[in-house]
C-alpha cells in the first residue's frame, strides 16, 4: 500500500471538503428559502425517498473503486421486485421465505455479472449493459409488462412506512449499509485491494492478491444491495412492478462520482459517496419547495438539471483550482 501514490493529498482543497461545503451551502439555502424544508417530517421524507438510490450508490462505490461499473442495478431492482411479487402472490410463499429468496436472487444476479467480468475478463461496461437489458427484460416478460403485484403482509409494508426510534426504518437500514461499506472499503484488506485493483490490476496481481476474486466481490454485493433496495421500494409503494428502479443506476453512479470517486478507479471514499448522496437527496427535495419553483411545479425537472450542474462543477473545480495554483507557482 505504501507504494501507491496518494494523489488526493496534493490538492490544496480535497474533493470531500469542497463537496461538504457545497452540501452545507445548499442546505443553508433551502433552510432559509424553501418552504418547510427543515421540518422533522420533511427530513424523514428526504431519507425515505432516497434510501434505495443511496444504498445502490454505496454498493456502486467499491465497484467503481476497482475501475469497474455496474449499470444493471436498477434493472435488477425491477427483477427482484417482480420475483418477490411472484413468490408471495403466485407461489404463495410466506413473506420471510420470499424475502430470503429475493435476496438470494440478487446475490445470484450479481454473481452472474461478477463471473463474466472477473473470470471471463469481459469489460464491465458491456457486461452490465447486457444484464441491464436482460434483467429488465426478464422482469417485463414475467409480468407481460402490465401485471402489478399488490397487497402484501402488513408487517412487510411497515418497512416502507414506519419509524423506529424516531427515524424512518429506511434510515437505519441505510446507516447499517453505510457503516458496512465504510468499514469494508476503509478498514479491511479487502477494501484496500479494491483500491489497488483500481490503480493497477497487474501490479496488484504481482503483489500476490487474488485479483479475480477481489474484482468479483463488489458486483456480488451490488446484486445483494439491489435486492434490498427492491424490497424497500416495494414496501414503500405497496406494489411490485417490473419498472421498479428505472434510472436508479445512473443516479447511483452520479452520487458516487459526485462524491469524489474516480470513474477510472483507485481513488475515492465512502464518506465522499455519502456526501454525494446527501447533496442529491437534499437537492431533489429542496428545489421543489422554493416558492417560485413550487408555484410553477417544475421541481423534478430543475432537480435533474441542477444535479447535472452540481456534478460538473464538483468535477471541474479541483482541476480548475490546480490550474490556478500551478499558474501562480510558475509566476513566482
Amino acid at each position, binding site marked *: 500500500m505504501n507504494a501507491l501514490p496518494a494523489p488526493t493529498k496534493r490538492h490544496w482543497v480535497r474533493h470531500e471538503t469542497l463537496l461538504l461545503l457545497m*452540501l452545507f451551502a445548499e442546505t443553508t439555502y433551502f433552510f432559509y428559502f424553501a418552504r418547510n424544508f427543515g421540518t422533522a417530517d420533511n427530513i424523514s421524507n428526504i431519507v425515505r425517498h432516497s434510501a434505495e438510490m443511496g444504498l445502490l450508490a454505496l454498493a456502486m462505490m467499491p465497484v467503481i473503486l476497482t475501475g469497474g461499473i455496474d449499470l444493471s442495478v436498477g434493472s435488477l431492482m425491477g427483477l427482484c421486485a417482480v420475483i418477490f411479487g411472484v413468490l408471495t402472490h403466485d407461489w404463495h410463499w410466506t413473506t420471510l421465505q420470499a424475502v430470503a429468496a429475493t435476496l438470494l436472487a440478487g446475490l445470484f444476479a450479481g454473481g452472474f455479472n461478477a463471473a463474466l467480468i472477473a473470470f471471463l475478463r469481459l469489460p464491465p461496461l458491456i457486461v452490465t449493459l447486457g444484464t441491464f437489458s436482460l434483467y429488465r427484460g426478464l422482469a417485463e416478460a414475467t409480468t407481460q409488462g402490465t401485471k402489478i403485484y399488490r397487497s402484501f403482509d402488513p408487517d412487510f409494508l411497515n418497512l416502507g412506512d414506519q419509524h423506529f426510534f424516531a427515524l424512518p426504518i429506511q434510515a437505519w437500514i441505510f446507516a447499517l449499509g453505510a457503516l458496512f461499506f465504510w468499514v469494508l472499503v476503509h478498514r479491511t484488506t479487502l477494501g484496500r485491494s479494491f483500491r489497488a485493483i483500481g490503480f493497477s490490476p497487474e501490479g496488484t496481481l504481482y503483489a500476490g492478491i487474488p485479483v479475480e476474486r477481489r474484482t468479483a466481490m463488489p458486483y456480488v454485493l451490488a446484486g445483494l444491495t439491489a435486492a434490498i433496495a427492491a424490497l424497500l421500494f416495494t414496501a414503500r409503494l405497496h406494489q411490485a412492478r417490473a419498472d421498479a428502479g428505472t434510472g436508479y443506476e445512473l443516479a447511483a453512479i452520479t452520487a458516487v462520482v459526485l462524491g469524489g470517486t474516480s470513474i477510472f478507479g483507485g481513488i475515492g471514499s465512502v464518506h465522499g459517496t455519502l456526501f454525494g448522496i446527501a447533496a442529491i437527496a437534499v437537492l431533489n427535495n429542496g428545489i421543489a419547495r422554493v416558492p417560485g419553483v413550487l408555484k410553477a411545479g417544475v421541481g423534478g425537472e430543475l432537480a435533474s438539471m441542477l444535479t447535472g450542474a452540481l456534478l460538473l462543477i464538483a468535477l471541474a473545480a479541483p482541476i480548475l483550482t490546480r490550474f490556478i495554483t500551478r499558474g501562480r507557482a510558475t509566476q513566482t
Partner: protein
Amino acid sequence: MKRSQFIPALLALPFTLLMSCEKSSAPVGADHPKAAKKLTIAFLPKSKGNSYFIACEKGAREAVQELGAELLFDGPTNTDPAKQNEIVENWMTLGVDVIAVACENREGIAGPLKRAQEKGIKIVTFDSDTTPDARSFFVNQATPQGIGEALMDEAARLCAEEGEFAIITATLTAANMNEWRKFIEARLAERYPKMKLIDTKPCDDQKDKAQAETTNLISANPNLKCIMAICSPAVPGAAEAVKQAGKAGIVKVVGLGLPSENKAYLKDGVTQSVILWRVADLGYLTIQAAYAVGTGALEVGSKSIHAGKLGEIQIDGTSIILGKPFVFTKDNVDQFDF
C-alpha cells in the same frame, strides 16, 4: 491521511442536519397559505406531459381563478407511481389544504393519502380513484352506464336506428369495457330493435390489430353499417381500415377516445363521432369540489354541489359525476386540444 480528512467531514455532517432540524421548532414563515387565508389546492395528475391532463390543468386553473385559491400543479413526467407517492408526501409537509389526485396506483397511494388525512389535509380524487377510505370524494368523469348509453345512442343516430354494427374492444376480459358492453347491449335491446350487433372483436389495445380486425369485418359483412371502437387505440385503427377499404361514410365509425388522435379522420369524414367527456371540465369540477371540501361547504352526505359554470352537479354517495359524455364531431373538434 484518511483519518485526517474523514473526521472533520464526519463532524460537519450532523451539524448540517442539526441546522435543518432547528427550523422545525421555528414559527412557520409568512408565506404559509393559512396566514394569507388563501386555500391551497395541490393538483396531481398521473403525468404532466399527457395532453389529457394538460387539458385538465387548464380547467383547474380557470376554477382557482374564479375561487381565489392557490393552485400547486405537479406530477411525474411519465406515469410513475413512485413519484406520485413522493409528491404527495412532500406536499404533506408543505402545509397544503387540499390534495386532488388522479391515482396511478390505487392501493399504493392510499397509505400516503391516509397519512395526509390524519394531518388534516382533505383529499379529493379525480379520473382514477384510490380506496374510498383514503379520500373524501371521487370526481368521476363518467359512469359505465353513461359511456355505454352514449356510444349506443350515437351509433344508432348515425345508422338511422337500423342495420348491422360490430364492436372492437381491447380484450374480452377487460373489466371496464365489459361493463360498458353490458350497458351497450342493454340499451340496444331496450331502444333499437332494428339494429343488430353481429360481432365483438378484441384488438389487445393495439391500433394495428384493430385495423386488421376491422378490415376482416368489412370484407366478411357487406351489410355492415357501423364500427364501434370502445378502446382508444381502436378508434383511429378502425378508421384507417374503413378509409383503406374505400368505405368512408358508408361504414360509419364511432368510438371512445381522445379527439386529438382522431382529428384527421373526423375532418376526412371517415370517423363521424368520438365520445369522451370534456376533460377541461373534469379539472374545473375537481377544483370546485376540492375547494368546497377544503372550506367545509361540502361534506360527506351532501347530495349535490354547486360547481360554478357547470351549475348544480349531483353526488352519488361519495362520487361526484361530471355528467353525460360529450360527442366530438368534425364541427367542434377544433375547439379542443387534448
